[in-house]
């Protein structure tokens, strides 16, 4: 096909195929798919988070000079390590959008801007979930909490709810910080205090699971509070995210 014919075909196709803007979920799915493809090509975020988390467990192991941790101490070590790893992921969440014009490309499209929030929060949630596939065995190895096997079901519940909090707050803070010069600093400065309630719920709830004579049932009140915290933050973030993307 000659160049001129191809241009004519492109013009003809343009008039015949009237674009219909996608819905919020379809837009979010497109962004998430793009983000996951980029991550699978570059391996820039999740491996860094995993290495950081394992290194933190090693440091705690030697710093505390204990072969096994239990109760609140074990829960605290796990919670803090995962939270710092989440901050690392948060800082990288919008890097491609900022450095490669992804924001402009997105803002030029006739789509619901909240889709960006949904996609980025989903991406960070998935990064955390993959990280935890490495982090939990590493935690067992370096901290050796009692009854980890029997507590696994409850731990997964707490991890899922904590990951939602990390993802939602992380995405919101990252979007807030991305247009500033001190973005790497602003993320942790604003994000860490906002994550403290989730950290408390996670640590107190899982501390109970990691106690030698504790119940195997996850403490419902901490799950409930953590779930409510997720819902409140998700609604708040969804409501204000549009404004954060404005110049």
């Amino acid at each position, binding site marked *: *096909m000659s*160049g*001129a014919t*191809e*241009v*004519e*075909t*492109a*013009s003809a*196709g*343009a*008039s015949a*195929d*009237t*674009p*219909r*803007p*996608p819905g919020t979920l*379809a*837009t979010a799915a*497109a962004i998430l*798919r*793009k983000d996951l*493809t*980029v991550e699978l*090509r*570059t391996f820039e975020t999740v491996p860094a988070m995993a290495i950081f988390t394992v290194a933190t467990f090693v440091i705690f192991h030697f710093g505390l000079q204990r072969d096994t941790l239990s109760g609140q101490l074990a829960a605290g070590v796990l919670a803090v390590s995962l939270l710092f790893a989440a901050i690392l992921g948060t800082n990288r969440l919008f890097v*491609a959008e900022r450095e*490669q*014009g*992804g924001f*402009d*490309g*997105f*803002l*030029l*499209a*006739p*789509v619901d801007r909240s889709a960006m929030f949904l996609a980025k929060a989903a991406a960070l949630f998935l990064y955390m979930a993959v990280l935890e596939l490495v982090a939990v065995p590493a935690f067992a190895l370096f901290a050796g909490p009692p009854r980890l096997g029997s507590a696994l079901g409850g731990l997964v519940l707490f991890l899922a709810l904590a990951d939602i909090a990390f993802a939602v707050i992380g995405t919101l803070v990252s979007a807030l910080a991305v247009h500033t010069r001190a973005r790497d600093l602003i993320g942790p400065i604003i994000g860490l205090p906002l994550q403290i309630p989730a950290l408390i719920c996670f640590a107190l709830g899982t501390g109970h699971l990691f106690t030698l004579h504790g119940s195997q049932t996850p403490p419902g009140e901490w799950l409930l509070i953590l779930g409510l915290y997720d819902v409140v933050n998700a609604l708040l973030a969804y409501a204000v995210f549009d404004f954060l993307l*404005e*110049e």
Partner: protein
Amino acid sequence: MVHALTHVVYTTPRLVRVRSACVGAIELTGLTRRFGERLVLNGLSLSVPAGASLAVLGRNGAGKTTLLRVLATLLAPHAGNVSVLGEELPRRGWAVRGRLGFLGHEPLLYRELSGRENLSYHARLHGVGPQRVEQVLAAVGMARRGDDPVRSLSRGMVQRLAVARAVLHAPEILLLDEPRSNLDPAGSELIEGLIGRPAGLTRVLTSHDPEAALAEADLVLALEGGRAAYLGAPEGIDAAQIKELYR
């Protein structure tokens, strides 16, 4: 030195024709935009009829890119009225986003993704089918290299992909910031049917090559310090005035 636009419209035969189709695809009245204390656009008023091409000339920092970004809904005006395709900006920006094609200094493409993946992503955001992606890839001569990562392509190829991205959703208005930069003559010829005069679209284009810009313009806006130093037909501005503009 500033000409009344109505005079231009009625005395330029080409514009008389397009005026009959539709008047004022772009209307600016007193457009003002600042960056901090610096006034980048200062009370700019003009009208671009549908189907006409406006060439924006001026030295670096004159406000050309800022004007394009305001029209693309990427920047909000600080004062004045901006109307694009009959919709007032920024209030009704959502209504025109899918009808604008923006080609800026950055290609708005992800380096780790291939050209085809980038265009498919933008196609999803604009609700355009996959067939159209192949059409525009072929039209810019990138079908064979469509699966190569953008980071591995030459600047000229990336620019061709950027053109494909800008016209993917069949926009009614093209906002082109130095569209032929990095393109060799063959590449420039290849994109002519998509973004040049033959495309028959309303265009606002900037260029550091005044002769080329004047050759494809119906109207010329010369910016100096954010103000219109000249606004009128290309025939009304001479080489000496252009030279003065770039000093």
